[in-house]
């Protein structure tokens, strides 16, 4: 008798003696469900964070910074919430690894499947960002609070100050410059000069929402660029800054955080 027959005999003997048992069909059904759940959960997380990044970068006026030139682009790159983007990248990798179990994913080169996941992420994240979900969550975080650290999460990422500048509303205009109130309620003195860029040539008036790029100087900010924000396209976060002057306290001049 040859070796191959011995092999067959050994295997059948182990099966007959009960040493080797079939795993139940339910085991595979549950495994499949857990797997599907993992994919769904990763997709939801990646979509949520992508839409949140869109919400906060738009809300902080970061997307307008490139209009202020190379310094604006630099400030944008420094102010993007990189930790959130890193989380998105990690979950894209998780999705790719989970997807490798499916023939339509592993049969294609890695670049194609990664690009596919990025496209899905961008579209799903963009679609979610277009809904009022984050606006409602943000309002709730500011007013009633969101459990499990949700409020802190929304507050942390929706500050109106960023690296190299801030967003706010003009409260008063003087010959020396502008008094601008930020979302956190701080009022800064912003001096302007001939070097200050005004990309849209929009008229600066009291109540205008602006993004200011500037450099720190004694007791205030020297504006390198000021970009007005169209009232029609005002991001939700900035809507909390009413264009009417509230009870103003003498809190300026100060230097904004983030510089």
């Amino acid at each position: 008798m040859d070796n191959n027959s011995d092999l067959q005999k050994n295997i059948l003997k182990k099966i007959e003696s009960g040493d080797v048992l079939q795993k139940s069909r339910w085991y595979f059904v549950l495994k499949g469900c857990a797997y599907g759940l993992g994919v769904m959960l990763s997709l939801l997380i990646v979509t949520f964070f992508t839409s949140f990044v869109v919400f906060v970068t738009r809300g902080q006026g970061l997307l307008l910074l490139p209009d202020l030139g190379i310094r604006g682009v630099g400030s944008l790159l420094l102010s993007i919430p990189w930790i959130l983007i890193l989380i998105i990248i990690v979950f894209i990798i998780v999705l790719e690894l989970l997807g490798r179990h499916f023939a339509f994913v592993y049969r294609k080169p890695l670049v194609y499947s990664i690009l596919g996941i990025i496209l899905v992420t961008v579209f799903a994240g963009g679609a979610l960002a277009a809904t009022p979900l984050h606006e409602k969550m943000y309002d709730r975080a500011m007013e009633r609070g969101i459990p499990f650290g949700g409020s802190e999460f929304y507050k942390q990422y929706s500050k109106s100050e960023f690296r190299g500048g801030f967003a706010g509303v003009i409260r008063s205009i003087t010959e020396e410059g502008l008094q601008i109130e930020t979302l956190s309620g701080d009022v800064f003195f912003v001096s302007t000069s001939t070097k200050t860029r005004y990309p849209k040539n929009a008229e600066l008036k009291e109540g205008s929402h602006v993004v200011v790029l500037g450099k720190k100087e004694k007791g205030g900010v020297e504006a390198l660029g000021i970009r007005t924000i169209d009232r029609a396209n005002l991001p939700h976060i900035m809507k909390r800054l009413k264009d009417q002057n509230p009870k103003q306290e003498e809190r300026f001049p100060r230097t904004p955080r983030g510089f």
Partner: protein
Amino acid sequence: MEKSDEEIVIAVQNGESEAFGLLISRYEKKILGYGRRFLYQYEDVEDAVQDTFLKAYTNIQSFKTDMRFSPWIYRIAHNTFINLIKKRGREPLTLFDPDTLLGSVTAKENPEKELLQRELGHEVEAALQTLPPKYREPLILYFYEDKDYKEIADIMHIPTSTVGVRIKRGKEKLKRHAHIEQYGQ
């Protein structure tokens, strides 16, 4: 009329364990051949093949009857063999292979397969053992096990175009090896 592999699997799934013997008799020579060529320098090939069939039996309920049995059992054999290589630690296995990134448009299936198959003699089989596992395995599956690129992709879970790239590079390495053997340079 002879039952298909998939019909036998359904019988095993429904409790006819002895029918599994039929599947073993149909595949043991193929899997042993694949194992002996792929794990040429390894002494426990028979054990690895036995493990392959035992794993197939244990996981038989995960087999979907709209699938083909052959790539399924070869996939289990591939995993078992790769685990053995990892366990022995004699040959390096890379976690990430840049070949899987883009693939290549020139890596199409070769229409001259039969001609090349005839050229594969004992010397080539021995030379195969000089190749790293990532080139050795697709060459064995393609030329000896008669699998096409899509089936190899399913067995190894790599892009179809990467199968082509690896076969092409593997053949080039074999030719270089043969040239060195013949001319000593």
